[in-house]
């Protein structure tokens, strides 16, 4: 890598292997890790590989995959949303409450959590993009505001499955070609989102803004709008996830999805989405969710207390984010050293 300095490296051939690896192959890295994890658990507890168990893992991962993808969308623009869990809870509670009062409204009800989520996300986006509040502070504040509103509205009451319309209670068992509807929805949402980010100009601009905000202005990108859009898009997905979660557990409480800010962040970061913005994708984030679900499942099979879950999530975030910074730093150094050698060469 450093030997090419003497040549004018303008031929586009000799590239830094490290830069390639760091920026391009993170997702394959997660997939490989997942495989490794699977092999390890299978060796320790053969029942891990049973089809029933694998399908349970996927079902458990489905909703988190959507939220991790939502978090990834915001992270890609070099921002952060810690209010995802509160957005899920608020949209789910209001929607379930409405459904309990108006049981005749059919599946069109799903538009309600999406709209609520979008509105809450818009507030986050306005604070961060136009109000220039630090993303962590702004969404930490709204996390508490949204959850607080849920408490105020609910007055501590939970909505039990018996009050929900029959079609909602039946939803978790709906299968398409043997696959749970939840899983199908998660796969479709993540794939659509991945395609949007990959192929649409707006999606590409989200990466551009996260990659280099100051350059964005020189390219005529409206960075504030792009960031606002990312927050809204993410929150709409959280609204959907909140609804699916309510349907899945049946009973909607005011603390629904508390702590998901950390879980979604862990999944996204494990999935190779850089907290420094501009890199990673939602497929990786979704795989990160599967990794977390697999670890959960493995811990149960191994008889390790559930409390370890929190520890592992936190450790995973710290490790993945540190690795991310180290890799980014190494790429920078490699580039700088190459430049220096190139300069010194006769």
């Amino acid at each position, binding site marked *: 890598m450093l030997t090419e300095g003497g040549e004018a490296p*303008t*031929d586009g051939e000799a590239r830094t292997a490290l830069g390639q690896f760091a920026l391009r192959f993170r997702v394959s890295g997660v997939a490989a890790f997942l495989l490794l994890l699977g092999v390890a658990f299978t060796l320790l507890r053969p029942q891990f590989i049973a089809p029933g168990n694998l399908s349970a893992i996927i079902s458990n991962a489905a909703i988190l995959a959507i939220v991790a993808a939502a978090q990834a969308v915001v992270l890609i623009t070099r921002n952060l949303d810690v209010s995802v869990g509160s957005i899920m809870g608020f949209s789910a509670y209001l929607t379930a409450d409405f459904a309990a009062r108006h049981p005749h409204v059919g599946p069109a009800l799903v538009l309600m959590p999406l709209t609520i989520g979008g509105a809450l996300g818009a507030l986050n986006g306005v604070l961060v993009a136009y109000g220039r509040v630090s993303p962590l502070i702004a969404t930490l504040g709204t996390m508490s505001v949204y959850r607080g509103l849920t408490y105020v509205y609910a007055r501590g009451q939970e909505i039990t499955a018996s009050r929900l319309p029959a079609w909602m209670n039946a939803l978790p068992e709906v299968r398409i070609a043997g696959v749970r509807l939840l899983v199908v929805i998660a796969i479709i949402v993540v794939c659509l989102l991945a395609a949007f980010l990959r192929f649409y100009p707006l999606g590409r601009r989200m990466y551009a803004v996260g990659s280099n905000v100051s350059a964005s*202005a020189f390219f*005529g990108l409206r960075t504030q709008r792009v960031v606002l859009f990312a927050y809204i898009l993410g929150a709409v997905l959280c609204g959907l996830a909140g609804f699916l979660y309510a349907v899945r557990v049946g009973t909607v409480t005011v603390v629904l999805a508390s702590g998901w800010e950390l879980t979604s962040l862990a999944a996204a970061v494990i999935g190779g989405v850089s907290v420094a913005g501009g890199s990673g994708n939602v497929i990786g984030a979704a795989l990160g969710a599967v990794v977390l679900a697999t670890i959960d499942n493995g811990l149960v099979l191994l008889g390790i207390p559930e409390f370890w879950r929190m520890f592992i999530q936190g450790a995973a975030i710290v490790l993945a984010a540190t690795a991310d910074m180290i890799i980014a730093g190494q790429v920078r150094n490699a580039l700088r050293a190459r*430049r220096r050698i190139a300069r*010194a060469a006769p």
Partner: protein
Amino acid sequence: MTPTDRVPVLRIASITKTFGAVNALSDVSFSVARGEVHALVGENGAGKSTLVKIVTGVLEPSSGHIELDGEPTGFGTPVDARRAGVAAVYQDPKLFPHLDVAENISMGATPVTALGVVDRKAVVARARESLARIGVAIDPHALIAELSVAELQFVEIARALVADLKLLILDEPTSSLTPAEAEKLFRIVRDLRDHGTAILFITHRLEELTLIADTVTILRDGRHVATRPAAEMSRTEIVRMMVGRPLEGMFAGRAKRTPGQEVLRVEGLTREGAFSNVSFALRAGEIVGMAGLVGSGRSEIAQACFGLSPPTAGRIAIDGVPVTPRSPKQMLALGLAYLPEDRDGLGLIMSAPIVDNVTLPILDRLAKLGFIDEAAGRTIASEAVETYHVRTTGIDQLVSDLSGGNRQKVAFARWLSTRPKVLILDEPTHGVDIGSKAQIHGIIAQLADEGLAVLVISSDLPEVLGVSDRILVIAEGELVAEMDAGSVDQETVMMAATRNTRDSAHAH
């Protein structure tokens, strides 16, 4: 290549730009013709970058205007400028590191298919085409993060070509290129020129002028000095025009005196990518100036000595005792203090009063049984305000309320309260008014008389010549000359500072 008599592509008409009370540009006028490479030269702070920012719409002029093809123009943003055919390539290119070359070239005006999807084929084809036009073979699929600086600049130029390019501005493009890369860039520039593009070329490397420039414009202290055909001017003449102000009266020059014993010795100091093999020594009671262009590595050398960023090789000794600089705290304890250039960001706590700023580095000393002796701290701060003539309402005034010069005096007081043996000052009078400047020079001289060894890093040549006993010249991370301040003039120092590694490695 003689410029045609037709309407110039760019006319800069009586541009003046003031920042507060400072005149960055005063009444600058010149024109750039079609098919001309017009070089813009001047010392650091002469106003070149400000001028570029005005032409590209990043800044608005205070008075005067810009004409493009004879039409008065005022670009609101760099994007407007680009649409009108004016593009700038900066020393540090503004691109998206995580995205690939093709995408960077099209970003902001991405071609889409009927479905609104990015037309990847068109994006790649467009990139291929404009890269081919400048004759470079960069893979459109390579990520920007994987490219060298030269390649980044080529991508920027290729991006500029996507629109109809009338004027290309290159801001010190060769400062981090290899000779081969620079030659390639020159070839591209000549080629664009021959196809009628006007080029404004900003450089510090004067020997490049004969290679590439048709016309040279010289700026000094924000004023237009001359615009002449490059062939008619020698390098010495250009240097004289760049630095040609009379020595200001306040530099009385230092009386000769015999320095004391050696307090700091630096040998073979190297940090990969910043500077290499720098050796010098400072003696008690001596003021040593460190001259060089911005970005030549002067600050990095000082910061390495101060333990801010460890060197990768070399030795440092204080009072003859070898030390390995690990942290500023350690170096402060050993008697070395460093005043950074960005004193507002790094040197002072703006939101705190003078007294807190002055006593911060000596809190350990002021502590009695773990509690801070506030009275003692206030006494020290009051004495400092008096000693350094800080104009203030009192030691409880916030530093942010002081003028630049007075802030610098507080910064002095702050580090001097540590009673150092060696004081390194990085651009001590940058952004300071004339009156405070003279006072700061007085303080520096007084400190040396009291036996301190002082290293003054400055881009202000008259200052370096005026306050120093000895001058070290840094160019491209290397110590290229050591001179006796009494026997040199500005031209000699400037020639050394603009020396090019290529001169020695390549030529003759």
